[in-house]
Each structure stands twice: as structure tokens, then as C-alpha cells.
């Protein structure tokens, strides 16, 4: 009896594994192996063609004195610090607006989400022209408001805000998630608060914000990771002819991921690039961990 039960269980396990095999094999070959391989390469001098030479911690040590690495890290943190709060605030405000019962509401929602489905390369070239200091629509609009537009892509002070601006174009994705979460906030809470005489702001701070806080935590982490890995937007905005790698004015648009890419595929320093990838992974891990630890203070689960 017991033996047949055990055999049955084993068969079930094998069958389960067989069904999961397409994912498991894919995961092992395309995700787990490259991750482990890059970890090994990070301790080697590897140029993609010859056998990796072990160099111990040299790659990590060199990063410390690599001015360009620090600059790219600084740029990335700047983009993150500016981009994440703006994304959250705009998405949250936008979700409220989209939640208003007005005619054509589905159309507005679709319009806001639309940029998210435009391929990032297309968006990149579009923004190069929108941000053009002489002919761009952004500065044209600013001029109409009487504000002299900056040299977005040429001035080192404005190049990073330009990247954030371009990233915010696709804020619709975050907004739609907030919109769904807003719909989940129990209406009776608002009704009770209204009876107690709470105004709009108090209803927001005491009901909406706490009720949305788990979603906010998720959005902050996802957006944060997105900004820490930012590549396509600055790469497309700085691309010069013949695909020469460029970092924009005074290298202000050189993101960490771009410098990593340069090291890997332009300079063929795969070992150094792997080390950079692991450092970025650790940075992301630490920031996320800190965020999760603080979340106990401001994230409220089970509001109902």
C-alpha cells in the first residue's frame, strides 16, 4: 500500500516536472546559466574570444578608481531620484483625473496608455525632435508660455531632465495600475468620512493614500529598478551617426547601463562589464531592501 502510494507520488512529481519542463529548461539555460556565468566572468579578464583569465577582484577594484563609472552611477542615481517620485506623483494624480466620471472616459484612459505601447526606439527618435532646441515642440510650447526653452540635449544641466521627461511620457502604465487600485478602495469608507465632515484632502490622506500604499510600494520598486537600469532612452537621445558611443554633453547622459554596454560590446571588456552588472544588482538589492524595511511604517495591508 505504502509502496504504491510512494510510486504514485513519484509519478505525479515526474509528470509535474515534465509539464513544467519548458519553463524550467528555459529558465536554466537562458536565465540561471547566464547569471552564474556573469558572476564567474566578473572575476576574470574576458574579451569574448579568448579563454577568460582569472584576475581575482581586479575588476571590482578598478571600478573604484574609474571616474567614468562613478559619473555614470551618479547620472543614474540622479535620474532615479528625479524620475521615481515624479512618476509616482504624476501617475497618482493622473489616476484620480482618469477616475472622474466624465464623457469619453475610456478614450482618455486609452490615450494616456498609448505611449506605453509605442516602441521605445520610435519614441526615442520622436523625442529627439520634440526636444530639439530650435524646432522642437517642447520649446515651442514653453515659448508660448513666455518661458525661454533650454538646450535640452546640448546643455549638461538639462540633458538629464530631458531623459526623465522622455521617461515620463510612458507614465500611463503606472497610472493604469493606480486606476485599478483606486477602484478597489471601499466606497463606504469615503461615505463614512464624508458624513464625518472630512474634506477632499483629508479623505485622500486618511483613506486613499493608506489604501493605495501596497500598490505604491510595488510601483516604487518597479519604477526604481527601471530607472536604475535605464538604457534605451539615453542611448537613443545621445546616438550619433555611425553608432559611435556617446555620453551626451559632458557625459551627463551616460547611464550606468550604457557604460556597462560600452565596456561589454564596444571595448569587449566582458569581465569588467560583468563586475559592473553585479554591482548594479547589489545596489538594486540594497535600495529595495531598505525600501521594504521602511515599508512597515507606511504601507498598510488589510484596510478592509
Amino acid at each position, binding site marked *: 500500500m505504502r509502496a504504491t502510494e510512494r510510486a504514485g507520488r513519484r509519478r505525479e512529481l515526474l509528470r509535474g516536472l515534465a509539464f513544467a519542463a519548458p519553463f524550467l529548461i528555459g529558465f536554466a539555460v537562458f536565465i540561471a546559466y547566464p547569471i552564474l556565468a556573469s558572476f564567474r566572468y566578473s572575476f576574470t579578464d574576458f574579451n569574448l574570444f579568448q579563454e577568460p583569465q582569472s584576475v581575482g577582484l581586479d575588476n571590482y577594484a578598478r571600478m573604484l578608481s574609474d571616474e567614468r563609472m562613478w559619473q555614470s552611477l551618479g547620472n543614474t542615481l540622479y535620474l532615479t531620484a528625479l524620475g521615481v517620485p515624479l512618476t509616482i506623483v504624476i501617475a497618482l494624480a493622473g489616476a484620480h483625473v482618469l477616475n472622474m466620471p466624465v464623457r469619453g472616459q475610456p478614450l482618455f484612459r486609452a490615450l494616456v496608455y498609448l505611449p506605453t505601447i509605442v516602441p521605445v526606439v520610435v519614441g526615442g527618435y520622436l523625442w529627439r525632435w520634440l526636444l530639439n532646441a530650435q524646432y522642437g515642440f517642447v520649446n515651442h510650447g514653453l515659448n508660448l508660455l513666455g518661458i525661454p526653452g533650454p538646450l535640452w540635449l546640448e546643455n549638461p544641466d538639462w540633458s538629464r531632465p530631458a531623459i526623465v521627461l522622455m521617461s515620463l511620457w510612458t507614465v500611463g502604465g503606472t497610472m493604469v495600475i493606480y486606476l485599478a487600485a483606486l477602484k478597489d478602495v471601499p466606497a463606504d469608507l469615503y461615505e463614512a468620512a464624508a458624513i464625518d465632515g472630512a474634506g477632499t484632502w483629508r479623505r485622500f490622506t486618511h483613506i486613499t493614500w493608506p489604501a493605495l500604499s501596497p500598490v505604491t510600494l510595488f510601483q516604487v520598486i518597479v519604477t526604481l529598478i527601471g530607472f536604475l537600469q535605464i538604457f534605451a532612452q539615453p542611448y537613443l537621445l545621445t546616438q550619433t551617426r555611425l553608432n*559611435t558611443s556617446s555620453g551626451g554633453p559632458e557625459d551627463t547622459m551616460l547611464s550606468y547601463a550604457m557604460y556597462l554596454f560600452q565596456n561589454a560590446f564596444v571595448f*569587449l571588456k566582458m569581465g569588467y562589464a560583468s563586475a559592473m552588472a553585479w554591482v548594479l544588482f547589489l545596489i538594486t538589492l540594497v535600495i529595495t531592501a531598505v525600501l521594504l524595511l521602511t515599508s512597515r511604517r507606511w504601507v498598510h495591508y488589510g484596510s478592509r
Partner: protein
Amino acid sequence: MKIVKLGMPLLMVAAMAGCSGGGEPAGKTTITFSYLWSGTEAEALEKIISEFNAGQDKIVVKGVSSPDSQKQLASMSSASGTFDISDNFGNAVGSWAAKGILAPLDDLLKDVDTGAFAPAAMNQMRYRGKTYALPISVHTFQLLYNKKLLDEAGVKPPTTTEELAAAIGKLTKTDDKGAITQLGLGNPSLPNSLTTLGYAFGGTWDGTDPAAPAPTPADPGNLAALTFWQDTITKKYGADKVAAFTAGWGQYMSAQDPFYAGKVAMVIDGEWQAVSIPKNAPELEWGVTAIPVARPDLAGATQLTASTLFIPANSKHKQEAAVFLKHLVGEKAMRDFNLALGNLPARTAMADDPAFARIPNFTAWMEAMKSPKVRSLASAPYAAEYATDLGSAFDSVARGGATPQEAMAKVADRGKNYARD
């Protein structure tokens, strides 16, 4: 995620290892020629390929247009690649040869006289005494000018850097607010303009021994060239003003190109313009002259770059590929190809070929090819990193963010970590 992104190409490389050419006609060897060219350039190349195939009965060449240079690298990183012959630029040769991915050509092409090719190009083809590639085309830089704008300002084409400075002054116009409306000297590619000017001031970017190149960014000639740029453009008109004007420039070599549109009076650029201008700006009255130099003994100083052909080390048909390579760099194929593309033939003897004289103004660039003062950037293993660092530093100098000395000292400092072999 980042790690995954990095790891993926490595895996794709591994996955591509198995792919190779298919069935072969009886008694013939099929080789694959993968080239980065596309469009009309690829058409010209296909014509040469079919001529070669028809002209002998041992080798069949299959041409594949594959403009993705990452794919090209990936193919060469596995035991058996996807092509037997391919092309790239001269400055990549050293880096690739050092990594063992190029087949040395010295034994494969014993009967090809490398002395027949432009010496500055051949410097790029060699690494540690061996030849790893041959040039099919070369490119030189000269000073193009808008005849109408020069005539209006009463400026003669400059021959010295002093005259160039004066010409830039006369040809740059500003409105009453100081905004630039016309710039004397444009920069279709700042790195090309500044490295070329470095040579014109007697500088060198990789030392004086082509057999043992080393980065020399702070050479006095180079610093003089960068100072010249800052003094005559950046400081005179203001970095912001120049940037604002540059921001409105149209696409390079399109009808809106600033030189074609008369927004820029002079540019330092290559021979391909001789074919592009009649096509994209037929109304433009333009001329071309040698790069102005700082001292009379530097006359003829300019920069040369090369388009190369090579055989990857993982090719299974190196002998056959060599036969085809020899055909491609032979006089007839070289003439046909370069006439179609509007590039310079890499053989020095062809500099006087009358076939090229039909292209208006082309001879100016042909002359530069023959000049004993023509230089090329080293194709050393550090070339890609050096080019990137120089690019950043040039940007900083042109923007007035750093003095030439500061910017070049920084590059020299980074040079200590460059790959040596």
C-alpha cells in the same frame, strides 16, 4: 535583469555555433561573404560577386548583407562561424587580431604586394608585424567650402590655419542678440574634425612608430589644434550660442544638412561628399581644398581611414576566401566598387585613375591619398576605448568645459587602463 541582458548575447553566441553554410555544387567550394554594406552599396558588391563567380569554376561566393556588427562579432566568437570573409574599418584590426579572431594573411596572400596599398592604410592592417586585413577603400579628409558664401565674404579658400581662423571669423554671422545665424566651420563629426586638425598642427595621436603605437593625446600639436578650436569658435561666439545653433541642424547628408543648406560655410569631411552633394544638394556651389596647416612643412597633412576586408580565424575555407579577397582588392573590382560607392580606391597607383576624375571635385581627396603627410589613427587594441575617451574630451573642449590640457590629461590618465594586447 541586467545580468540577464548581459548573459543573453553570450548564449546566443553559443547557440549560433552550429550554423554553417549548406550544400555545395559538385566540385565547387561555396564560401560566404558577409558584408556590413547595404542598399545600393550592396548592389554594387553583388555585381562584383557574380562576375567573380562567372569568371572561374572552383569557388562559389554567396553574398549576405548583414549590417549588424554585433552579429559579425558573435559569429567570430564560435568554433565555426557563419562567414568566410567580411569587412570592417581599419581601426578595428588591431583589437581583433590581438584576440585571435582574424586569420593572418601573410601566407594566404603571398603574391599580393601590400606595398601597392596606401601606406597609412596598411599601418592599420598590421598587428605585431603580421597583416590581418587588406583595404578595399580608403577615405581622406579635406576642407569643403561653400563657394557663394566665401565669395560674398571676400574670403579665399584658406591654406594655413591662420587663414582658416580669419576665414571662420569672416564667415560666422550673428544677429543683434548674438545668436549665430551662420557658422564659419561646421563639424559633421567633431572627432574627425579635431583628430584631422591635430595632424594639421603637426600632432600625433598614437606616437611616431606605427609598429608600436601608444596613445599620445597630450601631444603639443594636438593641444594646439584643440586650442585653435576653442579660440576661434567656442570662446569667440560662446559655447551656448554654438550649441543653440547646432541644435537646429538637419540630418547629416540630407537636403537639410547644414553645409548643404548654407548654414555652415566650411566643413572638414571625406570624399563621399563628392557623390552625396550632387545627389542631395544639386544647387550647392562648392569647392574643396587641402586641410589648412600650421606650418609650411606640414602641407598635405590630413587623416586617412580605411574600409577593410578580412578572413575570420574560424573560417573553414581560408584558401578559397583568400582567392576571392585577392580578387576584391584587385584593380578592376576595386575600381568598380569604389566608383559605385564614391570612395577612394586603396591602391596608391589608382590615385591617378581617370575613371574617378569624372566625379566632380574628387581629385582633391585622391591627391590627399598620395601625400606623404597623410596619417591614420592606430588600429591598436585600445582603439575603441581611446576613440570613446577622445570623443568625450573633444566634446568637453568644444563646449568650453575644460581646457585642452585638462581634457587631454584626463584621456592620458584613462589610457593607463587600456587593453594592451
